[in-house]
């Protein structure tokens, strides 16, 4: 096949060939010509202009009406040409944005990465899957020098990038709280002041903060409006909702948070989650919290990490692999 040239004589020859022979190959070359024109940013009205000139070359005696009509068409195509140019530049901008967002997302990933600590006598499973590129859920483990384990699980309301930025703010505030003030109620009270001062009025954060002390084998916790978690009582083989009242972070300035505690016995589990877990929908049907517990119960024989992964897989299947909200689930189990 001849190499295509985007010039007048080439177009004229193609046109001539087609008019004489009605040959399909000429049509195919016309298609190639238009594709090449797009690559070279040649506008539709320029092609029409080439067409007019080729016609004039081929038929010097072209009726005046035809010639005028071609000029009319050319004028009509100008807006299309402009729209196409705009489309092209938008497409380029979109590519640039996409790559910026993925840079931001991987930065967030790095900033918010938390290491699942090793605590003697405690098994920990954690999974967090974002619904979009940036995760609006946050969880963080802190291990103090005296071996206490702090666990924060939070959901930033307000989606996407602003939510992700708010989360980085939370993480830095938490890092700056002195170690001797790591009581759950204390932490929530400080964070509330930070969020209340800084965040846009429609944004707020729900957070559950728990602290496990291997010394007295107690779990201390407070909640700022967070989806209630569950406690598995191994001796009675029963799940119960972890009741903790408290208003979400960032709504009123001097909120106090009540701190609760309970003794953790061997085999007991503490289940913390975000509403991505309980707000799962299967078609129009909501997944009730009881179903989450059923799945946990059915897989309880697994190690904690395998267990949380299995629960995620279960709901992922139900939702036809489409997550509406970020999904975070943490399970602590005291070894027998």
């Amino acid at each position: 096949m001849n190499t295509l040239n985007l010039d007048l004589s080439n177009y004229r020859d193609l046109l001539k060939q087609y008019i004489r022979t009605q040959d399909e190959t000429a049509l195919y070359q016309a298609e190639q010509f238009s594709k090449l024109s797009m690559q070279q940013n040649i506008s539709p009205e320029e092609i029409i202009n080439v067409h007019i000139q080729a016609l004039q070359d081929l038929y010097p005696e072209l009726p005046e009406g035809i010639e005028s009509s071609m000029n009319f068409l050319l004028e009509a195509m100008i807006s299309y040409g402009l729209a196409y140019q705009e489309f092209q530049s938008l497409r380029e901008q979109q590519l640039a944005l996409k790559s910026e967002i993925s840079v931001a997302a991987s930065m967030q990933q790095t900033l918010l990465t938390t290491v699942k600590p090793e605590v003697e006598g405690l098994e920990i499973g954690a999974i967090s899957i974002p619904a979009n590129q940036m995760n609006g859920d946050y969880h963080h483990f802190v291990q103090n020098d005296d071996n206490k384990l702090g666990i924060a699980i939070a959901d930033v309301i307000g989606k996407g990038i602003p939510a992700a930025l708010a989360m980085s703010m939370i993480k830095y505030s938490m890092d700056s709280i002195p170690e001797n003030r790591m009581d759950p109620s204390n932490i929530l009270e400080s964070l509330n002041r930070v969020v209340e001062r800084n965040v846009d009025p429609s944004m707020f954060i729900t957070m559950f903060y728990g602290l496990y002390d291997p010394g007295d084998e107690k779990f201390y916790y407070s909640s700022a409006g967070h989806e209630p978690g569950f406690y598995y009582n191994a001796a009675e083989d029963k799940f119960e909702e972890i009741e903790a009242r408290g208003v979400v972070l960032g709504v009123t300035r001097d909120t106090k948070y009540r701190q609760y505690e309970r003794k953790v016995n061997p085999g007991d589990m503490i289940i913390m989650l975000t509403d991505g877990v309980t707000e799962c929908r299967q078609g129009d049907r909501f997944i009730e919290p009881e179903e989450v517990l059923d799945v946990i119960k059915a897989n309880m024989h697994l190690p904690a990490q395998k267990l949380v992964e299995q629960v995620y897989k279960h709901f992922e299947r139900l939702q036809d692999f489409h997550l509406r909200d970020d999904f975070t689930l943490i399970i602590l189990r005291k070894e027998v």
Partner: protein
Amino acid sequence: MNLDINVSDKDSTAVVTLAGEIDAYTAPQLKEQLLPLTKESGKVVEVNLENVNYMDSTGLGVFVSALKSTKENNSELKLVQLQSRVMRLFEITGLTDIINIDSTVRGGS
């Protein structure tokens, strides 16, 4: 799903009647209509949620910003006739303690 927003604004009371779902798609329309009402000093803004069968956290965000606006502008926000599923969201988040919510819960799925 859509959200129908009906505002009847008479003297010192505005009644906002909602029907449908409040989620990330409909919340901006609600915010646009609700917030200006709360900016009027002395105004009582009553939101009827009887026909709202679903609300997600974005919807809560709209009511939180409306509440903040009433504090700044000396107006009042009142939510009435919530379905149980919607009520649960306000309870979990502790917002029942700081927003005036009529506790008569309507049925609901």
